[in-house]
């Protein structure tokens, strides 16, 4: 990872913004404070690893809407931690359903905040790992011939070589050749590895 995990902090209250920034920095986080959702959106870079800590009640665009805007922007799976002065249940349910990491009530205890942020960090790391894996699998898939791809789908579906040959109207020997070349290209040795890879790509259907 080239860039440091960054916390995007958005709160319209300057006092709170300053205090939370200080707290997070004391824990050696990289913090980018914004006093309004608009300023945040203008500078937000999806490529940078990190999470967003958002206040719920803000003039103009509230935290939940901001979360929606973030999710909607392509390629963003920025984890979100909410902090709110008014922790009512309907709002928290909406936030969690929309994929929030946590929903914290002000005043926020540092341990709760750090725990939520470390969750976010893990979530961010995992989603970034998954992203990388997906990207490499996709690159390998690109190298397959159409026939090899057909064979791949049948193998993943659990068909035997003889059955596949019957399905595709050829002989078992030919299928064997396609199959070994395909597994070689994808860099897997067992059928189990192949199935997992297909799962990542969501190819089971």
């Amino acid at each position, binding site marked *: 990872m080239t860039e440091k995990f960054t916390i995007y902090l958005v709160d319209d209250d300057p006092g709170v913004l300053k205090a939370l920034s*200080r707290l997070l920095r*004391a824990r050696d986080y990289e913090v980018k404070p914004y006093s309004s959702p608009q300023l945040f959106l203008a500078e937000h870079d999806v490529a940078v690893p990190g999470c967003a800590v958002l206040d719920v009640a803000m003039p103009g665009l509230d935290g939940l809407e901001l979360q929606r805007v973030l999710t909607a922007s392509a390629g963003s799976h920025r984890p979100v931690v909410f902090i709110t*002065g*008014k922790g009512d249940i309907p709002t928290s349910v909406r936030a969690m359903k929309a994929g929030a990491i946590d929903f914290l009530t002000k005043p*926020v205890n540092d341990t709760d905040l750090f725990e939520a942020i470390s969750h976010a960090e893990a979530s961010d790391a995992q989603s970034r790992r998954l992203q990388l894996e997906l990207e490499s699998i996709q690159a390998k898939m690109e190298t397959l011939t159409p026939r090899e791809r057909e064979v791949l789908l049948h193998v993943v579906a659990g068909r035997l070589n003889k059955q596949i040959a019957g399905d595709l109207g050829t002989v078992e020997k030919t299928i064997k050749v396609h199959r070994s070349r395909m597994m070689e290209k994808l860099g897997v040795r067992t059928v189990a590895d192949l199935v997992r890879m297909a799962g990542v790509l969501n190819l089971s259907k």
Partner: protein
Amino acid sequence: MIRTQITTPWSLALLALLSLEARAAEPKRVLMLHAYNYTFPATSTIADAARKRLLERLPNMIEIDAEFLDLARNADASHEARAATFIRDKYGKYPPDLVMTLGSAALPFLVKHRDTLFPNTPAVFTSISPQTYAAVRPPPDVTGIVTDFDLAKTLSLAEQLQPEARRLVIVAGSAEIDRRWQAIARKMVEGHQRKFETTYLFELPYSELAAKLSSLSRDTIVIVLTVLADSEGKAFVPAAVAGDLSALSAAPVYGPYDTFIGRGAVGGFIETFESVGIAAADMATEILEGKAPSAIPPRTTPSQHYRVDYQAMQRWGLKEGNLPPGTVVMFKQPTIWDEHRGAVLAGLFVVGMQGVLLSALLIQRRRRARFENLLLASEERMTFAAAATGIALWQLDRDTNNLWVTEHCRKLFGIGKDVPVTREALLANVHPDDVEIASRAIQRSFDTEQASVTDVRIVPPDNEVRWIRIRARRNSGDNGRPEKVSGIFIDVTDQKLAEAETALQRREIAHLMRVSVLGELSGSIAHEINQPLTAILSNAQAALRLLGKKSPDLEDVRDALEEIVHEDNRAGEIIHRLRYLLKKEERKLESVNINDLVRSTAALLHNELIARATGVGLDLENRPLLVTGDPVQLQQVLLNLLMNAMDAMASTPLARRHILISTRGAESGLMEVLVKDQGAGIRPLESGRLFEPFFTTKDHGLGLGLTICSTIAQAHGGRLTLVNREGGGAIAGFSLPTQAPAVDAA
């Protein structure tokens, strides 16, 4: 023989003398030419009066003849011609020395036929209206009395006697003279100031006339003019008609003629026929004594008066007090008092004097005792009445400092039965804080005419505090120096309690409204306090972490601590503001800068505004706007107006939700806060009721917010207004009188 001879010339001389005497005393002949018949009342009255007067003025020299032309009963031309012929035949050879006409029809007859009858005989006419006189244009040797009836005055007499009358009925017949009256009557009614519901009973058969009059309502004025003939051609005598109609009329009858009086008519503005007769006779006398008739101009209405029949007035219950001054009251039965006033007075005086003399000693003796008793009884009554109404009376002498009070004072001041009621005893029970007030109030009364009113508290031993109102007023002595102050004590505890109760209730309601508004805002307020608390906690934890490091950045720690102090102050301020609004204290007057109040109210609502997605703009006057008032109550008003503005915009699109608060100081010593929203505005039906208690347009409103705000505004000498804004929304205005402008340094 000689004797006979002597006798003869004597006799001759005597005869001659006698004949001379007879020639010299040849009587003057006056012909009374009556227009109507012998029993016609008006003309016969004039004729009688004139005859009497002539005989008085020219005794033994007058011979009076009379002819009755009877022109009313026989209105045809042939009758007139026959009458003329008859008179010419009868008097042609020996014409009279003077003709007097009686009745208005007689003069035209005379003028018309004079040349054939007695061309050189001077004439005196009577009963001629100015109109007839002008129409007939008699020759210069014909003079007489013109009668100008003032019908308006007859009506005015009726009006004064019947102030409640609304209807007017005027009666006249169908003969020529009657018709003349008709025109006069119409003209008079038109020109009359007061408008009646007027009915003209003209040109009717007599039977119908009688029927109409008998069915009138009592509040009618009936004026009967002449009825010489009815519409069926039947001839009548006006005075008789007036009499008959008066008897059957259901309302009082008036008329312009002397002869109506005594026959049942109430009266009128009237020329008596008697005075006409006398005046005519005086004119005739002058002419007969040799004065040229052309040198005697006609005279108009010698003596017109208001005349009334007392009996007729009695019949209708009309009051003598309503009569115009100078009215001649006729047929009034004189009382014994009227007739023998002198004798009665003298008798009474003598009896009275005897009584006085007899009583004098007795009275003298009993007087003192009686007055003493009366005085005592009066004082007892007064004291009793005063005590019954809870009032004690008192009087303080300036010089002696002696206090006189009624017994009830003991009860009011809670003084025991065995303790004498003195000034000191009273003051001993006055609340220590009020003693000074009480004695100063009474002392002040010596210096002013004004009655003073002072309320003080009384603390009777072993009893509750009571409020006593002291009213005091000074009494000046003979030398004008205020010697005494007297007044009353009255217990006003109940009144005071009720006042306090009301004030308390008003405060309670205002407080409850504040609490309810703050209840609505509780979420926002919690958030408002949460912000500084969050900042404090985070700063503190950051500082702890920083200090835990190997080489702590102390500068950052210091910053964190400073932030903590700052944020703590901020939280404290919010809590202070809240406590302020929640407290339940009496109104406190302070100098308040309305701009500051607007800012702090907007701050208090900061989160609520965000929660309701409502923007707010402040457009405040540059200089401080100082008013004197209770900041809590004033803020309550602002808070309410802002909450209302937010509520009003509940269904306004998000982009348009905006409140503009502006403050302006006007030249007139008033300042104004305007809260403008972009909501639905005020519906016309609501506008009149917005300040009514319990009127609300909100689903969960109590309907007390604006009522209380309006009360608060008024208590501060200001006003609350609510109007629609041009282009949608409403403007709530809150005006207050500003303090006298502070001295400006610039």
